[in-house]
């Protein structure tokens, strides 16, 4: 698992796939801010299968990113590929108020 954060966006029909790589922490701030401008929806799938640890700063930036694309672009956000701890973390911090978990 790589540790440096990066994000890759691809499109499958009406769904944009946002693939997260590495650790999501304070170093992800700029990339996540730019990401909000790159994603248009209407459906956005955030895939954390290749991401590592997410700390409180990472959560704050993810929340900001998701809130922005939901409010400004009416994007419908889904999430997949969470580790055990990240799943708990997302539930605990309200990320699932902005996005739904894919089965």
């Amino acid at each position, binding site marked *: 698992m790589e540790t440096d954060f990066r994000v890759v966006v691809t499109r499958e029909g009406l769904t944009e796939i946002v693939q997260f790589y590495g650790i999501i922490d304070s170093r992800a701030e700029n990339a996540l801010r730019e990401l909000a401008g790159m994603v248009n929806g209407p459906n956005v799938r955030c895939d954390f299968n290749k991401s590592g*640890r997410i700390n*409180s700063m990472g*959560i704050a930036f993810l929340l900001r990113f998701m*809130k922005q694309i939901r409010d400004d672009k009416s994007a419908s956000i889904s999430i997949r590929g969470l*580790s055990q*701890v990240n799943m*708990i973390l997302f539930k605990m911090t309200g990320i699932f*108020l902005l996005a739904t978990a894919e089965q």
Partner: protein
Amino acid sequence: MNPPILAFFRNDTDKRRWKSDMASIPGIVSIVTEESAHSPFKTICRSVPKPQFILLSASFYPDKGFGITTLIRNLFPGTEILLISPAFEPFPDIALLFRDGIRNLVVVPTSPLPLSQGIGPVDPPLSVAIKSLTADRHERMYACLRQGTTVSEFTLTSSDQKEPLIKHLENTINGKSTEEEFLRQRAALIADEMIENALYGAPRNGDGTRIFRKGERREILPGERIEVRFGFDGENLAIEVSDGWGSLLPEEIIGHLEKNRDRDGLPPTDGGLGLFLIWRFVDHLYVSIAPGRETVVSGQVRLATPGELPEAKGFHMEALRACA
């Protein structure tokens, strides 16, 4: 020989509820207050003028006119109170606890803890809490680890060391079971938040403003000290991070825990989420603050089946007096 521990229960039913937990703790003097807290206090005060600390049943909370903590404070000034709460009861109101100067809470599960795999029974949370409360600051790490467990210690010289240290911690939790993987993930997150707090939350100017921005690369300042310790005994992980600033305030911690716990929606944006996450992911949180000298944040986590975290969590917060 240590002085006795005084344990206060609201009534006989309350005392019976705690009977089995109390049985393993030596030197406990139990007091049932019934409807009036005043008369038993006078008798006890004469017989135990200086208890080691006080165990107080959470059945007194929310305080319905007993004013028991005020009475305890008057009779035993400076004595720590450990509130004991069964997991099936609602989590005590943190603001009320703080108002009453209660900085120690243990939430005790109602079902017996499972036996560990071949290494003996797990210490119940109440025992661990009492050991932590009575242990010397430097022995606290060992209080929840089996005897003979190696504790690794590191002194940070730069923020660049955070990731290699977390990697080392992850490697310390060897094993490939889902329980071990779950512990590894929790340990990494806890260590991350503890180290970030020491690197970026603790260093403050005289007016309380933070010196460093979260995530910026930084060297440890001359005279500054950040130490990381951890040990894993095959089942329990103890982790501790100390900084030489002593800038954290107990009110601040309680505020963050309360604000994040009671929110209904997205987390507040004014910080404190990291501390809240540490509290939620450790089995027991211990914070010791010597203002202007040192803050120690430590926690204990044990192997568990992946899934939801138990809602209720205990803590100890010790605020030592400032240097004269």
